[in-house]
């Protein structure tokens, strides 16, 4: 059994978000990049499955679409324990484009895991699109994966409870919180061993983006908080009705 993990390279979640002058692109200067947190949990679960499967999981491979500067993120994934990394050398413009690129390398895997959401643009379509392109089953909102008798047993979060489904492979699992307890921290030995693990660079295919980014808007700045004295409750009515116009 071979597992592929789709890895997003996203800004650290403490990043102060800025855009370029015409607000058509994110300003990446001075940004620290990390593995998309949901993808990191997926990788952690894949490593757990490999370690506890008694040899059933032969390899865990990670892949992303990104330029050379994203290799640090892949190298960290290798340090966590992935056996091999694949980088498709292109800008990850939007979900359709990224899925088209990943489809060129994703055949032959029994289980593909993608995070439920990307921490940068809140994208969530790559996993589903990839399954469609490859003609594979996909299952969303996955919070647990076990291997039992060569089959996958999958937990899904549903409204008011959870659902357990058994599914044949190959399969794309779109995973969320709960898939692993917490992301695995790479050990120093793993970091050293990652030096010699393969990181394959693949050229992209021509694929037309399905969407076009028009502009970004920052949320309006929070207005100052107005304090009202205890005995001036009628001012509150005035402020809510006449100024905020919410009454």
């Amino acid at each position, binding site marked *: 059994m071979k597992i592929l993990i789709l890895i997003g390279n996203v800004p650290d979640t403490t990043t102060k978000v800025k855009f370029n002058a015409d607000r058509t692109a994110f300003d990446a200067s001075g940004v620290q990049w990390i593995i998309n947190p949901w993808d990191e949990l997926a990788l952690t679960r894949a490593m757990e499955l490999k370690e506890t499967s008694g040899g059933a999981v032969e390899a865990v491979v990670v892949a992303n679409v990104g330029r050379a500067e994203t290799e*640090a993120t892949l190298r960290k994934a290798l340090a966590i324990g992935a056996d091999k990394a694949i980088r498709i050398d292109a800008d990850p413009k939007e979900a359709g484009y990224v899925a088209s690129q990943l489809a060129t390398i994703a055949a032959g895997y029994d289980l593909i895991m993608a995070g439920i959401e990307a921490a940068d643009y809140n994208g969530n379509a790559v996993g589903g699109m990839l399954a469609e392109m490859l003609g594979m089953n996909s299952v969303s909102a996955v919070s647990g994966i076990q291997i039992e008798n060569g089959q996958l047993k999958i937990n899904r979060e549903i409204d008011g409870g959870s659902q357990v489904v058994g599914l044949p492979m190959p399969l794309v699992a779109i995973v969320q919180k709960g898939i692993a307890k917490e992301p695995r921290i790479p050990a120093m*030995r793993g970091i050293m061993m990652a030096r010699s693990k393969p990181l394959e660079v693949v050229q992209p295919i021509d694929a037309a983006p399905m969407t076009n980014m028009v502009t970004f808007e920052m949320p309006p700045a929070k207005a100052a908080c107005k304090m009202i004295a205890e005995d001036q409750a009628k001012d509150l009515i005035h402020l809510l009705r006449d100024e905020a116009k919410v009454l």
Partner: protein
Amino acid sequence: MSASAAYIAPDHFLVDELFSEEQKIVRGSIRDWVTRKVKPVIEDHYERAKFPDYLIREMGELGIFGPFIPVEYGGSGLDYISYGLIMQELERGDSGVRSMASVQTSLVMYPIHAFGSEEQRRKYLPKLATGEMIGCFGLTEPNHGSDPGSMVTRFKDMGDHYLLNGAKMWITNSTVADVAVVWAKDEQNVVRGLIVEKGMPGFTAPETHGKWSLRASVTGELVFDNVKVPKENMLPNVKGLKGPLSCLNSARYGIAWGVIGAAMDCYDSALRYALERQQFGKPIAAFQLQQKKLAEALTEITKAQLLAWRLGVLKNEGKVTAAQISMAKRNNVEIALDIARNMRQVLGAMGITNDFPMMRHMMNLESVITYEGTHDVHLLITGNELTGIPAFK
């Protein structure tokens, strides 16, 4: 406002661009681990004067012990800048946690690797790397601190073993250590290294109580009363004070990096607080005297980062001198202690509580400025370097 808000490491001069991707992954790992495992428990352990010993095996699994020791002996084969960054991130958590790792790595694993026999390396290093074994280092004595050459701990050659007598003081990890690398004089007054194991008859390690510093770290004595040490436990490949002094060089190198972490933690906490705390209708960060403190802290952190980075490059290239390490240790500890004090002031009364890390770092750094060569002695090492006249003798 919360002390546990996401940490943002200062990097005013884009020092990150000087580090390799691998070094940044190393730093990120230890940073995440400290955030997850050390930060949430450290204030409580500090208050109770208890080392979080359940973390030791985890530290071993992560590869915190002996990162620069070759893989064949259980290390990770990383470079010295990676070692420095590990120390920096551990000390962002607590100087006591960093001290535990410093001692294990630089004062125990380093001498066994550098001066030990092949049998000693194979016997001790893999277990020290995993944390299965804890080590300590005995040099300082009750009456001999800055002047270790006058030590009175001695051993006699009894034919089939050595007989060791004496006492060592201010020993990190003493009571919990399975092995102690002890420096003692032979009958010809030559300083030699002996590996003394827990349980050898006549060897005891009482704890030192009443510390107001490094409270989350174990400190004690080592007492040797006619301890029979097997001959194969002598470190065969070093004679004289250069043995222990080279260990101290390795540890001081780690301290020069480590204390930057403590300074960064104080700065980060104070900056957040100053931006949120309102007085006279505006954040206190808007007042010039608060900005002065914060700006000076960032300036000194930046200088310390660059000093440590250059020191690391020299160490990786095998060119670093004891005097350079001494200067970096002295400078960086001093700025870290000043920053801890000044950042505490930014917080006003809140700064004295254990909701914030400044007082703990400040009290820890009083030890760090004293151990591994006092602040004064390091100045005299530089004085000796530039005049050729040793003023400490």
